[in-house]
């Protein structure tokens, strides 16, 4: 046993100032390093995700993708005169793939490409939009007057000869369902949090809290199926709108999924308000409700804000509910129209795509945007909650 005092080795607070050195114990040392290694690998893996999803989207962000129907053709006969870099990019191969292929195969590929472009039907070829690269930024964000339409429109239509990738309808769809969900969920969850943390008897509290947490445990496909089979019919008979499955139904079902999250964060924040605040209010004659509404709620208001922000992040990232209930990509702010959110677009269209195609990369870009939005909301929510707790505990 090495005889070292904490002072000699530096105090380690977590272990109450006691420090057992691994010196002279190779096994201990190895285990320690292994634990460190595994955890660093795990954490590096986490960062890898962020990098990877962003990397796949990079060509779109830099406008390097090309989704034109009619692409420039380099005739196979000119292969010898074309520089290899141009050839490699033209055939859409990676450097390694390009090196692995011999001249004969390359020639065949070019021939196939040339023949393929001849197979494009005449009507599509004569379409004025056949030379439009729909994956360019201006087409992604601004309306464009496609042939056959009488005015510029926002259109997401990634299949067919002319691919249209306007992402605005998807953002509208996401925001629409998310906002409906939040408007439904937040007041309910807040009122319940206020009740459970301030007004409910302890015995009630012990049963209600796990109950609401259990709502979070229902898989979202189940909520989606319930919305499809039951909720849609109920809401239709209640509000008498025309289309049975629409953004409104999806939004309410999203609300079901968001309630437990908003509830538990808000409840946590309300409970962390010191008891002395309430006792002081009660002592000067306030009722329990008055103390809850006028003292506890204002003191915990940043926590409530954080709950809403985190609820927003949860709702905008939810996939299966909206995917089951509605999915037509129409550009409309009407609550009772269908809506396709960012998440459902990724879920519905990713499966069959060729890696590296413009459509594939645009879906990764949508994923990156989604990731960035939820990352920021989470960061903001965490920050606000931590500050609130520190303040309520009297630490600055």
């Amino acid at each position, binding site marked *: *046993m090495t005889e070292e005092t904490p002072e000699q080795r530096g105090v380690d*607070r*977590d*272990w*109450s100032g*006691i420090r*057992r050195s691994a010196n002279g114990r190779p096994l201990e040392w190895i285990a320690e390093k292994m*634990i*460190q290694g*595994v*955890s660093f690998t*795990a*954490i590096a893996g986490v*960062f*890898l*995700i962020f990098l*990877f999803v962003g990397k*796949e989207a990079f060509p779109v962000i830099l406008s390097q993708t090309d989704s034109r129907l009619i692409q420039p053709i380099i005739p196979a006969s000119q292969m010898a005169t074309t520089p290899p870099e141009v050839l490699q990019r033209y055939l859409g191969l990676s450097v390694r793939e390009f090196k692995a292929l011999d001249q004969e195969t390359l020639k065949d590929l070019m021939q196939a490409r040339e023949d393929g472009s001849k197979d494009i039907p005449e009507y599509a070829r004569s379409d004025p939009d056949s030379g439009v690269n729909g994956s360019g930024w201006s087409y992604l964000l601004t309306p464009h007057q496609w042939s056959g339409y009488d005015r510029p429109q926002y259109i997401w239509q990634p299949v067919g000869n002319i691919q249209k990738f306007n992402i605005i309808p998807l953002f509208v769809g996401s925001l629409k369902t998310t906002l409906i969900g939040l408007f439904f969920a937040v007041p309910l969850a*807040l*009122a*319940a949090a206020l*009740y459970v943390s301030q007004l409910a008897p302890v015995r009630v509290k012990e049963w*209600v809290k*796990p*109950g609401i947490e*259990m709502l979070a*445990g229902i*898989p*979202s*496909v*189940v*909520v*989606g*199926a*319930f919305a*499809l*089979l039951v909720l849609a019919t109920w809401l239709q008979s209640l509000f008498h709108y025309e289309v049975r499955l629409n953004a409104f139904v999806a939004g309410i079902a999203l609300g079901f999924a968001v*309630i437990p999250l908003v509830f538990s964060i808000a409840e946590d924040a309300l409970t962390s308000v010191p008891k002395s605040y309430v006792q002081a209010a009660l002592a*000067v*004659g306030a009722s329990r*409700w008055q103390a809850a509404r*006028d003292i506890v709620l204002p003191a915990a208001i940043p926590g409530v804000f954080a709950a809403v922000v985190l609820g927003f992040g*949860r709702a905008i*990232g939810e*996939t*299966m509910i909206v995917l*089951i209930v509605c999915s037509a990509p129409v550009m409309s702010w009407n609550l009772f129209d269908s809506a396709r959110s960012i*998440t459902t677009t*990724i*879920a519905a269209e*990713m*499966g069959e795509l060729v*890696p590296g195609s413009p459509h594939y990369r645009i879906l*990764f870009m949508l*994923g990156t945007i*989604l*990731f960035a939005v*939820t*990352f920021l909301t989470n960061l903001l929510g*965490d920050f606000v909650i931590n500050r609130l707790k520190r303040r309520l505990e009297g630490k600055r």
Partner: protein
Amino acid sequence: MSSSPRSDAPRTLSKSGMDWGSSLGTAVSLAATVFILLILFVILGNVVINGLPQLSWRFVSTIPKKDFFDKDSAAVLPMIIGTSIRVLVMTVFVIPIGVTTAVYLTEYARSNSWYTRVIRAAISNLAGVPSIVFGLFGAGFFVHLIGGGIDDMFGATSPKWGKPALIWASLTLAVMTLPVVIVATEESLRAITPGLREASLALGATKLQTILRIVLPNALPGILTGGILAVSRAAGEVAPILFTGAAYFLADLPRSLNDQFMDLGYHTYILASQAPNIEKARPILYGTVFVLLLLTFSLNAIAIFARARIRRRMRSGH
């Protein structure tokens, strides 16, 4: 409350005369609570009432034929097996890595240094990343990059690993549930009194011995709770496995880690969205949802109540 006191005498609670505002406020907040619980019970009740009659031994023990929208050939055995295996494989990866990371964070890393704070922030952020983003990551990274890389290395002519498969779905889910395990383990490690560690060290045990023989066994209930929570969350998730391994229909059960599999949640989605006649598919859908709920919900209920008990014991104990 903005009423200013009219006299210097302290205000007292008025025994007579109801405080209408307070009663109304209490009633409304109580109603909201009841309404939320009602949502839970309506969903559960609806699924149980409509799903339970659909359950039969044949339904859970046979492999369906290609046309699983038909009431007579619908069955869920391969889905139950697929979901169970993918969750099991996930557990094998996520529990050791998650627990090790949590041990490092609580026992070895200095708790207030900047990098532990960055790591904690990253982990709690990871928990909020939408599951579909994990699906994208799994498809791009595991299936195409790693799987495709393995194929290239061994010169496979047809994709052997570079296609959606059980192992990639499980790994994607493992990455997704990593924060759940880390956070739950950290919580239960921190709940152990320093006195226990000190006693062990005082008897001459090394730090590693203390962690392995004293700290971890005592934290086991909390770690298990975290594991169950991760499993129940993963079992119900569909978005991450959409393009990393779930199959629309397979005539066979998965035999190896690079096979695709059928999945309860994904099957629910197919029944709900692609049935040619939703009214005909309704009973099958309810039956499938019931089985899925039974699987995820029982796990979840155990975890929630176990955690509530641990927290209560912690509060009252020391």
